[in-house]
């Protein structure tokens, strides 16, 4: 059994290596996908609070980027990752907002999504994870978005403001309102 799994992994790795050499555009896209999938998935989850809709938004955003490259004629040469990130974030956001316009936001008590994963062995964070997840999901959408992008995506306030289409000061204020709210709720939680 173990030998089969190991052999299959070797075969997969060999296939990946030969694909890297023969199809550099596929290797470049795979790397881009690996670099951004986790962050974009969490971002989409934080916006729509629904697993299926979040997955659809991430899938559409990445495939939109690939179609853009393919339409350029030379997918391997165009579209370095520096240009990809703003496109992917804007695309995920637009798709999520479009979904929210078409269907009402899922009620908080029906939103079974996890925005956080506690590090193994970190008892304090493990203990607070569920409560903090609920508090984050309960924040107003625009405040939740700023907190997520600022905290886990290392995004500058200017970039967040550009994404939300608001002045930088508004993005900063939303962040501080959200932190204050989380602080109060955590204090009440004990």
């Amino acid at each position: 059994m173990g030998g089969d799994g190991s052999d299959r992994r070797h075969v997969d790795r060999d296939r990946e290596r030969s694909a890297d050499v023969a199809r550099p555009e596929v290797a470049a896209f795979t790397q881009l996908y690996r670099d951004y999938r986790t962050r974009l998935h969490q971002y989409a989850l934080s916006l729509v609070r629904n697993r299926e809709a979040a997955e659809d938004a991430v899938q559409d955003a990445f495939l939109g980027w690939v179609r853009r490259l393919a339409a350029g004629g030379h997918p391997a040469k165009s579209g370095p990752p520096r240009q990809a990130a703003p496109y992917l974030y804007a695309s995920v956001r637009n798709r999520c907002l479009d979904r929210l316009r078409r269907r009402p936001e899922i009620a908080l008590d029906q939103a079974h999504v996890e925005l956080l994963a506690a590090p193994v062995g970190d008892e304090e964070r493990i203990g607070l994870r569920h409560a903090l997840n609920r508090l984050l999901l309960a924040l107003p959408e625009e405040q939740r978005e700023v907190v997520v992008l600022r905290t886990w995506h290392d995004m500058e306030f200017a970039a967040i403001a550009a994404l939300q289409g608001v002045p930088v000061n508004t993005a900063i204020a939303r962040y501080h309102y959200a932190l204050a709210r989380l602080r109060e709720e955590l204090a009440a939680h004990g």
Partner: protein
Amino acid sequence: MDDDRVERLLRGYELPQAPRALDLRVLEEAEGILALARARAAATGIARELANAFGFGYINYVIDLVTSTDAEYRVDLI
């Protein structure tokens, strides 16, 4: 608890993993789109070479002229 403490607490969390099924869907479909683009580019290249070889290079010139954007056209003039 102050804002810094809340920030540190939040930053200590990791992101949940994206589902494996999503990886498979996206990578497979992307590979298909890129393969099609590669085949299209190769076919276009062969057609252009054939046109040149048989003395119909002006067709390539006309196609380039029609399909190039304004920006590319201006750069050509410079």
